[in-house]
């Protein structure tokens, strides 16, 4: 018990440091980016019909003339008190914007995460246990093609097939065109999430499947498999392979959160899906520092939380680790 507590506290401290580092990096990158906030948000033509006085006021609003260190420390001070500030672009509290976007993104990401994990594991084990034979070659071929395919291109391809040719799925958005928000059913929302989730999972599968395949192939070479074979055991995959592949698979599964989050940025753009990714693009391109920092911190926390969950789950799944921890 004491060990668990110690472990958790250690992790939390690490998380705080990580978030601090991530926010500093994001801030510095944004600060050195060549984007001029007035130029990107108002546009050259809008500035062209403005008086110098007005431009000076707007520079003030976008913080063009405030020193970088001052701006960051100001943000950090407020953020530590739980105030993430107002989005410069949307003029609403950052947490409100993130909350609303996250609720759209979350189950898109969650379904893609579960789907890619399950499919990836299944395909990886399938290929690993039949190494060199046709299922292996098929899976490997698929994975290599998919991992070298840009996700936005795949998204366009899926749209072309399912929305334009077959006309069975909508071309984008999270709700039907022109539908009353109150009347939107769960099934309709599901229909709109299918293609984005499919794109995300299809690309996520490749990575997980390839890694699982390696590990499975590794396990298959072990002496205990040979021994089990010699004894004529039947449920080899379930009894020996899956159990030994479980830990690395878990690590992969939780590590893939970062890829799902990253991938959602591009995919949401293509599908006009109003998720966190779309907001991140808007904030990044629009130099909306408070919103961008907020999104960075939230997504970093999500990724970190995923890794932490994996660490904690090791003990639950593997009795050896549990016993090892208890002894320490």
């Amino acid at each position, binding site marked *: 018990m004491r060990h668990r507590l110690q472990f958790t506290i250690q992790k939390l401290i690490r998380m705080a440091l990580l978030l601090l580092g991530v926010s500093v990096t994001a801030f510095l990158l944004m600060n050195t980016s060549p984007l001029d906030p007035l130029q990107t948000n*108002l546009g*050259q033509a809008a500035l062209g019909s403005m008086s110098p006085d007005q431009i000076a006021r707007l520079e003030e609003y976008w913080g063009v003339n405030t020193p970088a260190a001052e701006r960051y420390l100001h943000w950090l001070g407020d953020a530590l008190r739980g105030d993430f500030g107002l989005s410069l672009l949307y003029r609403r509290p950052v947490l409100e914007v993130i909350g609303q976007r996250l609720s759209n993104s979350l189950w898109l990401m969650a379904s893609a995460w579960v789907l890619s994990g399950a499919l990836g594991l299944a395909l990886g084990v399938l290929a690993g246990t039949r190494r060199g034979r046709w299922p292996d070659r098929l899976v490997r071929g698929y994975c290599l093609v998919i991992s070298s395919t840009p996700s936005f291109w795949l998204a366009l391809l899926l749209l072309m097939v399912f929305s334009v040719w077959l006309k069975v799925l909508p071309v984008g958005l999270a709700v039907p065109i022109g539908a009353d928000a109150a009347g939107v059913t769960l099934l309709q929302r599901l*229909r709109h999430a299918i293609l984005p989730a499919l794109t995300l999972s299809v690309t996520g599968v490749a990575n997980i499947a390839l890694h699982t395949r390696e590990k499975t192939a590794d396990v298959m070479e072990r002496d205990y498999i040979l021994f089990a074979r010699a004894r004529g055991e039947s449920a080899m*995959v379930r009894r020996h392979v899956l159990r030994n592949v479980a830990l690395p698979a878990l690590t992969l599964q939780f590590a893939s959160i970062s890829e799902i989050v990253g991938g959602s940025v591009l995919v949401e753009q293509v599908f006009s899906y109003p998720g966190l990714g779309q907001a991140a693009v808007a904030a990044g391109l629009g130099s909306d520092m408070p919103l961008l920092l907020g999104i960075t911190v939230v997504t970093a926390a999500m990724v970190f939380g995923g890794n932490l969950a994996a660490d904690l789950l090791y003990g639950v799944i593997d009795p050896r680790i549990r016993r090892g921890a208890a002894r320490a």
Partner: protein
Amino acid sequence: MNRTCFRFFSFLLALVLLAGCQSAPADEGPGEKKNRVTVVMPPTSEPETGFDPAFGWGAGEHVHEPLIQSTLTVTNPDLTIGYDLATGMEVSADGLTWTVTIRDDVKFTDGEPLTAADVAFTYNTVKHASSVSDFTMLEYAEAADGTTVLFHMTRPFSIWPYTMAITGIVPEHAYDSATYGSSPIGSGRYVLKQWDRGQQIILERNPDYYGEKPQIEVVNLLFMEEDAAFLAVQAGQADLAYTSAVYSDQSVNGFSLLSVQTVDNRGVNLPVTMSSPTTELPVRQAINMGIDRQGMIDHVLNGHGTPAYSVCDGLPWYNPVNEVEYDPEGAKALLDEWGWPVGPDGIRVRGTSEMTLSLTIYYIVGDSVRQGLAAELANQLRELGIGADIKGVGWDTAYDDARFNPLVWGWGAHTPMELYNIYHTDPETGTARYSPYSCEATDELLDAALACPDLEESYSLWQKAQEEIAGDVPWVWLVNVDHLYWVRDGLEVAEQKIHPHGHGWSIVNNIDQWSWT
């Protein structure tokens, strides 16, 4: 794979198929009902801060009519000024007081009447918020009585009616700057019914609108990337969608390509500084007459554009004196005469000094149209014997680069203020804002136009200033980029105003006049 796994996957597959095979509900097949229309705009057109004029709704890069609110004036299809709420307006002789009378029969959609107090409140609020709208010329607004508003100005501003044309009037009794943007109350042609942020806006016809009743009852506005917009058209889920020249040679069943004339121009500045060969007037004149604008339109814009000769082609303050004949031989002769004979490698060299006549054309990285124009311009200049390279830069350095080199710019606003800012000398720096140029006669005429108490008269002053400018050629204007849209057959989009810079809301300015045939 064991049985549980198998069951899980079959369940999943079934779910996907079930959801997929379900036929599209009726509300996703726009165009079947003839009283609604679905329009696709770029994601950048979604107003981040909502429909609050104080935070730039209607103003800014893509000036447009606010639709949800009424405005005092409107711009007519030829961009002269007409009236919406206003019934008359007057300017004092010193140009510092505008008196506007308004209709007394207008109600907000919550049933309250719209009065001069609401107008004054709106203008003071917009000035105070001071976001995208430039209200620095307004000191304050006040309501003299129920139907008369007085605008007290800090400086004479003859083109104030163009500002009035995009400033939607908000109700003083129901305005809260935190919530108005997402739940606006106005008196315009349409009412905001729903806003799914990041996706779509649904507008409904205002049943109590005081003007002519719009035919289109429901307007769905979607925000999509260009390729997704094209897919939406192909899938038949939109009635009108923006597109670009890249897609213009495609064809879609049931849709046709609509090309709208614009003042969305592209041009290069020719710096009038010692370190640039464009200091010499004959060089600037030669470039202006020696470039083939139609060639640029054909090569870069797939034919979808018009030649540009000024920053304000076709607007009421435009002066045709800017137009030049395409005359490459004349341009070459002019350069020969001025002492730039063609050297051995085809580039002009000045006599003994071995100084070559060459330029580097800058463009903004990532803007394919500007890059294409820069390359085409460089090609055409080389034919005149002017050495030309191109170089891509970001906005962070572009403004500085343009002080010494030609840069491809894009302009086109529905206000002469742009003309003023591009050519008028900035008292602080001693040159115009975007490119080194300063001419006293031009400044005087531009100032006179801005201070003129009569709008009609100011047009002729803006035109006179262009006579000076046309003689100096501090900028060379290349093309006006047509705005392209896919339009479902049977949808009539009525007479469009000359579109300004930007590809968003302009198309729906007159949506109340659209109809299905």
